[in-house]
């Protein structure tokens, strides 16, 4: 093969891209469009002004990274609810198994992806932080 040919091929690709729409986002001024199926930060769904979660312990059981902590308690009506629900995002691998396991559809994965933080303890998401904002 002519030693010049690969160079010409390469240059032609470079040249072509000068006329295409850029792929790179000018983050943070430009925001990405997150797909609906994206697996970002978990959110606890709310229904009747309460978290839907009934503290069944299935998500902590299925979680491969063992990063969910649930503690159940009994409310005044003898109903079971999660007195503590915590996800350690430093360990979460965003596999979405927790959402899949939930028998009452209480958990979802949001499009929230900006999860960086300065201290380790800020990566522990408590029930209050995970509750869906309305």
């Amino acid at each position, binding site marked *: 093969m002519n030693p010049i040919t690969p160079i010409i091929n390469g240059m032609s690709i470079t040249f072509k891209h000068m006329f295409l729409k850029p792929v790179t986002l000018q983050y943070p001024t430009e925001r990405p469009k997150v797909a609906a199926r994206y697996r970002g930060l978990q959110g606890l769904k709310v229904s009747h002004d309460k978290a839907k979660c009934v503290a*069944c312990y299935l998500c902590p*059981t299925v979680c491969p990274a063992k990063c969910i902590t649930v503690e159940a308690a009994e409310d005044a009506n003898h109903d*079971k609810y999660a007195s503590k629900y915590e996800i350690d995002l430093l360990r979460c691998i965003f596999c979405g198994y927790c959402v899949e396991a939930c*028998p009452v559809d209480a958990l979802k994965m949001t499009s929230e992806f900006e999860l960086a933080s300065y201290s380790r303890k800020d990566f522990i998401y408590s029930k209050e932080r995970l509750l869906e904002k309305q």
Partner: protein
Amino acid sequence: MVNLTINDKQVTAPKDCTIYEAAKLNGIKIPILCHDKKLKPFGACRMCLVEVEQMKGRQIPSCTTPATEGMIIRTDTPEIIKARKLVLELLLLNHPLDCPVCDKGGDCDLQNLTYDYQVDSNRFVDSKFQHEIDYNNPLIERDMNRCVLCGKCVRICDEIVAFGALTFIDRGIETKIGCDFEKPLDCEFCGSCVSVCPVGALLARPFKHKARFWALTNHNSVCGYCGTGCNLTLGVKDNKVLTTVYNENQGFHKGQLCVRGRFGYQFINSENRLTTPLIRKNGRLTEATWDEALEIVATRLKGGNSVAALATPRLANEELTLFKKMMLDNIGSKNFDNSAGYAHAALTEGFVRSFGSAASSASILDIQKSDLLLVVKTDTYETHPVIGFEINMGVKNKGIKLNILSDKRGKLSKLPGANTQVHIPGAEVAVLNALCNSIIDQKLADDSAVSLPGYPELVKALAGFTPETVAATSGITAESINKLAADYASAEKALILFPTGLGYAGHTADLATAVANLAILTGKFGKEGCGVLCLSEKNNSQGAVDMGFYPREGGMNALQILDACTSGTVKTLLVAGENPLTSYPDNAKVKAALDAVEFLIVSDLFLTETAELADIVLPACSFAEKEGTYTSTDRRVQYVKPAINKIGKSKSDFEIISSLIAKMGGTPPVTPAVQFAEISANTPGYESMTYATLGNEGAFAPVSINPVFVVPVAAQITAAQGKLALVTGSVLYHNGTLSQHGEGPVHVCPDAYVEMSRADAISSSINDNDLVTVSSSSGSLQLKAKVSLRIPEGVVFIPYHFPAAPVNKIWSGSAVTMVSLSK
């Protein structure tokens, strides 16, 4: 043996088994829902259907059908699968399906079967059950919406527990399980029904929502309360004992437990546990380091005979022997004892004299093999409930005759055919002597008796105890005495049971010898189903006796030690786990002794009333946190491994004593195993035992018997006009003072009470729950009144476990105390 063909496989099975059992024995699984191996066949659920060729291929329940010779059985044809699916569909039709919030999830037979048979839709439509849920008691939640009407709870409560709290009520689709008059559950809360319920209809509330079953680590252990030595499984998560897990294959009792074993475990992780050593500084107990505390203790212990020790028989054998060794070798004092000195006297003095051995000559397993049981005090069901279950099963299933000699009636008296003879408190020894007298008189004594040492002396001594004379003072007719004697002597196999413990001051060496005479006279010992079983109070009471943790060769016993504290002869008192202020007789005397002693060291799990008076308090740990062996009342030695890490900075008594020995210049053993090797080398009956050979089952330490007749001293009872006889003892829900820290026992029996007969209540115009002042010559005590049918006229009963109302304020250790009641 019968030959069968199951699923084309040729198998054999014992003659008296059902098809289900035959299949199980041969490794063929048939699903069940209402069957339980401990209960009688019932056949309520139809999950276990099989086809039998000889029965024209009809589907029959395998759990109720006996296997007969030549049966050709199929367990999994498509028709059977279809039928089982139908059963499940019908069960699920009205079932709430709230598995996510149901604590049974993961351990639920209905859930598992639904999964196995893939019942994911239902051909029928109906509304769900709307039964009210019973939240009325703090221990057992009853949600009849989830019930599958298997009847196991009803049957276990009747067949084994003999309480009969539950039954089927209403008919057809309305059928449910309920209590009488649909009242909330109010029973003895043994939790047996919860343990067998295949679904989440009956749940343990103390464990409610705490964890899923699969998240628990199960640890085999041995109950830390009474001397029965039941095996238990502790369910542990995050270093916390969250529950006891039912295991139907565990122990002689097949996983059955009483309320203490099942619902009394909370003391282990109690928030009130001591977590650091405390030293009294300027009159206040303040936190200190172990080093600091042990240094002071070690210096104080160097006092020879002026040092004394009281230990609880809840310590492990290894700890007791090491403790004893420290007292003898490192300190040089013979003054150590357990259980107030009298709670073990039946063994250490009574049985030693009569049988030449400080142990019972029968085991719990003998109960069901006997023909007649003679129970002294009905409390056996209250002190050792699981032994009560054994008695109940023997009486109901095997037709064992039950005779009871007691100062009050109790649960045992309610068993079918039970013959209860109620005597005046304190007359037990006289009545037993009269029984011996009557046996000799009726020529029912065994031929071997005459030649045994002490026979002539006994005959002479018994002359004053004819049934007629004893009848006059004991409240039992001569006729009944003769009948009891004849029953006992003529039964082929007969077993005598009697409880001992801190609450039973009257159960002394003399009672033990009187009982032993009866057995020796009729030759009813050393054989299967015969003997005398002295039911020791604490989990290791028998162990403390076997290890010799009581005064011998001139040492002082517990009560003498307390006297010596008052007089100043004992200067340092080391109390390990005992709580004499509540459990020993004569509160004022104990208090004076503990106040007077120069230096008081207490090691305990909790800051007990006794520990509050101490100069140094050392935090000890519970059975769930340490390694060691415990000897049950019938000398079954059982090995326990730690289930959780030690709470806070607490240490086991083994570690505490080891460090003290080291500080005093001795060399302590490295591990409990080393100490146990020493035990097995030096303790009769324990030879060749090692942790490995004990395994999960434990092993019996054999008892050698050398019978001798000894004349027992019968107590003189002096009746006082207008006064009532106080008997003390244990209630079903408690054991010692430790159960005060278990949620279950405390919820069920929160306070002390004074129980009296209706007649006495009427004559003093006292109603149930009235606050009554009970006074004796030594003091008075305010208690709630409980009017009951089981107490005879002229007698009141007060349990001893409660620090808030210590019965020892009015009771100073005599077998019978005369008291008066006022409102």
